[in-house]
């Protein structure tokens, strides 16, 4: 009986190398690859319709510049959603971070790099504070993340309004605006380069380090993560604090780009970032997702909007299109996953 050979017997060679060990292969094997196809085709369609305006470096760099701040937030959001959480507060934390930074930088008076650096540090500290608070409430107080971050969304925004009396501070150091907000390096907006660096670092942390591995483990099966001895509560605090940290960085980038604290703005930032992450194949049920996917997911609405504006589609239809893509993307993704499980 024990000599029976069946397909369930140990295979002589166990596969240890994923087919996705080279970068190209890994990208191909990713859940989000089909959505990249969608992006490429969208770009191609607009390119054919309006080659002289859409496919210009000016337009493409504009799109890249306009998603830069969202990209920074999407890095943190990807981590949070992979843990099966959500962070609705990113837009407000961004605002309150930039408000604190702007207030202090304003009081320092001069507009050089020293001031800007102080602003950056403060902005990040404020961001980590709010993110850490989210994390503590989620991990220790066991309040659902949707509620916690909905609450901090209000509280953080309210704090920004209290600090400023609701008046935007419009005195970001000149160096910030000139070199980061609108500066360029080899034709690429500086803000985009900064975002790119953060995205790459975020991707490496998510996919290559133990911190990233635990992020997936918590979202995949929190009980099992606890049983193998992972300090899940602490990891959750760290992950939400990381999201807050990035909102703080985004706060400075926003100051640099807009020259104002946009207290009344950033109203749809959280939802746009969440939509991008989800379009990119990160499951809101946790355990699954990739940084690459989130970035593709960020570009789809941005490219659609830019393209629609250029070809002159009414703004109402743009919202319809982005919403439809969101639902379609999630539907298709779930379909694919179900098929993958059946095959496996």
């Amino acid at each position: 009986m024990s000599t029976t050979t069946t397909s369930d017997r140990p295979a002589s060679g166990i596969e240890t190398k994923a087919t996705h060990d080279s970068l190209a292969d890994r990208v191909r094997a990713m859940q989000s690859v089909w959505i990249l196809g969608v992006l490429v085709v969208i770009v191609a369609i607009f390119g054919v319709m309006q080659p002289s305006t859409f496919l210009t470096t000016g337009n493409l760099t504009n799109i890249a510049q306009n998603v830069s701040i969202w990209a920074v937030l999407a890095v943190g959001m990807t981590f949070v959603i992979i843990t099966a959480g959500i962070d609705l507060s990113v837009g407000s934390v961004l605002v309150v971070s930039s408000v604190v930074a702007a207030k202090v930088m304003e009081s320092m008076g001069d507009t050089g790099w020293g001031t800007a650096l102080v602003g950056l540090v403060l902005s990040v500290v404020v961001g980590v504070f709010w993110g850490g608070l989210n994390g503590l409430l989620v991990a220790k107080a066991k309040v659902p993340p949707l509620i916690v971050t909905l609450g901090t969304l209000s509280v953080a925004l309210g704090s920004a309004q209290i600090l400023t009396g609701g008046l935007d501070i419009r005195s970001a150091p000149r160096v910030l605006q000139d070199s980061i907000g609108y500066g360029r390096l080899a034709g690429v907006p500086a803000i985009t380069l900064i975002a790119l660096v953060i995205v790459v670092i975020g991707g490496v942390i998510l996919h290559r380090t133990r911190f990233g591995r635990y992020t997936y483990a918590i979202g995949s099966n929190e009980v099992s993560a606890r049983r193998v001895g992972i300090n899940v509560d602490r990891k959750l605090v760290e992950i939400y604090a990381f999201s807050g940290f990035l909102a703080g960085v985004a706060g400075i980038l926003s100051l640099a780009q807009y020259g104002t604290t946009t207290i009344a703005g950033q109203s749809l930032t959280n939802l746009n970032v969440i939509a991008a992450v989800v379009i990119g194949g990160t499951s809101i049920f946790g355990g699954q997702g990739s940084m690459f996917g989130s970035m593709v997911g960020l570009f789809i609405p941005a490219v659609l909007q830019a393209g629609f504006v250029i070809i002159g589609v009414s703004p109402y239809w743009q919202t319809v299109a982005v919403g439809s893509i969101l639902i379609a993307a999630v539907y298709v993704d779930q379909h694919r996953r179900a098929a993958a499980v059946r095959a496996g």
Partner: protein
Amino acid sequence: MSALLEARGLRRRFGRVQALDGADFDVSAGEVVALIGDNGAGKSTLVKALTGNLDLDEGEVLFEGTPVTFHTPQDASRAGIEVVHQDLALAPHLDAAQNMYLGREVMRSGLLGRLGFMDTPRMRQEAAQAFTDLGSAVRSVVTPVGSMSGGQKQSVAIARAVAWADKVLFLDEPTAALGVVQTRNVLDMVKRVRDRGLGVVLISHSMPHVLEVADRIQVLRLGKRVATYPGKGTSVEELVGAMTGALEIKEGAA
């Protein structure tokens, strides 16, 4: 042969229920001990008590001959005792190697390791080696566990536990939901684990499986060990009789 892990007169009461009523138990290195008993006989309570998941009212646990108290599962884990729970506690989105090393990742050497970078090739290699050695049915260490068959999942969970347990391995109903071929494979793995010199404790309702792999069979009834049988030469009827109390046997009669 002195026992590797031994329980003496364990008592634990939950409200009005005396879950353990002076239970004894022992397992030695290099043997498979089956722990059987009807529902409510105290099997899970006993396992919890032996693996740091439960405090006792009375009685003592000896590990390698010395009294010990495991306050947490991590304490037991440090002593070389692992449990494969019935729900397996695997992260379905992670692959076999990632699950195997979850919580105990092998880090890169030097600065990269201190920065939190993992040595993925090494973990994959070692995981594959472990699966091969145990005769596991897992064919890829890079496929998400969620897309594997029940037998493959079980073998991942066992391989993970074995990778960290060098003394005693508890298996809670490892064959409960498996088909014939998968069951065979898991039982073969159990034997290989024993052959490495570990003490294996098998909790199971399946008498044929128990009789096939167990060197000794200890029967629990009403929170007490009522009988110990040798694996060879015992019949299903005897075991059922001891479990239900239809057959009164003095402790140690075997």
